[in-house]
């Protein structure tokens, strides 16, 4: 088997397993109270980490580029209670505009 297909099949199988293990084994079970409070904090923790890495991560380094400017513009739009479509557009247009002039 080629290296490419080996990667495609192993990564595919691993990802299917990773995503399905919890839902298949533990479906329909309510979480106990203390665990539920922990799970409630998973969303803010993961989302903040995704914001941080997707805006500031380079190749194993922190970088400050047009994505950061897009994020600041998105933050302003969020404070002004703009709908998500506008927030996303403002970020993309800011980054694209800065790249076009630089």
């Amino acid at each position, binding site marked *: 088997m080629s*290296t*490419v297909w080996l*990667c*495609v099949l*192993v*990564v*595919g*199988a*691993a*990802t*299917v397993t*990773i*995503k*399905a*293990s*919890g*839902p*298949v084994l*533990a*479906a*329909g*079970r*309510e979480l106990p109270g*203390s665990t539920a409070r*922990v*799970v*409630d*904090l*998973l*969303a*803010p*923790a*993961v*989302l*903040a*980490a*995704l*914001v*941080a*890495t*997707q805006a500031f*991560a380079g190749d*194993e380094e*922190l970088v400050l580029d*047009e*994505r950061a400017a*897009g*994020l600041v513009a*998105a933050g302003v739009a*969020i404070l002004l209670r703009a709908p*998500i*479509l506008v*927030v*996303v557009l403002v*970020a*993309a*247009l800011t*980054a*694209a505009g800065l*790249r076009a002039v630089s």
Partner: protein
Amino acid sequence: MTEGTYRDGFRAILPLMPAVAAFGASFGVLARAAGVDVLAAVVMSATTFAGSAQFAVVSVLGAGGTAAAAIGAAILLNGRYVPMAVAASGAFRGGPLRRLIEAQLLVDESWALSSREGGFDTKVLVGAGGLLYVGWNAGTAAGVLAGDGLTDPATLGLDAAFPALFLALLAPLVRSGSDRRPLTAAVLGAGIALVLTPVSPAGVPVIAATAACLLGFTRPRRAAARRAPAGRPQEARS
């Protein structure tokens, strides 16, 4: 809490679809450039359905890396889905096969959109994830067929769309009410991710950041009240 519908998930993810399709296409282009054949690229988007891991595999292979390095990088990047899927597991309904299939639609965006206080809404997850799946795979197909003729999504600023979406989804979670723990968890999560980014392989920062949710075990007021009685020497010193 009112239960969401597939349509709610559909509509919530709609603003992000141009960016998702464009990145699916750029995955297709990069895969071909890295020597991945058309069928392998299409199969990968259909089965793995996780952008960052797929980009990692083709970039490792394109740079002449081994299969083990590519697979290792992809599994690290997808490791965050272990706690995320376990957190959402209680919301999935139906038999094992249906749960297995629906769980494949769990990606960062669909997971975040379906997050509710005290649980997850699988209809929203499936609606949003299903549309993302279609967009990602259609984009990949377009990318492997069109090749280099496509514009780099970064030129259009589409790479800035994803952190903006995650920030927009984060804002209402940390804004609400008297409980400061969601905000603390967010600050801690971002801090962990930023500190680890320069010193660990991609994927590890987000996995490590999930530890911030352990704050949920703290119950500040009651803990303080119970331990308050007789003066403790350490506290007196500090």
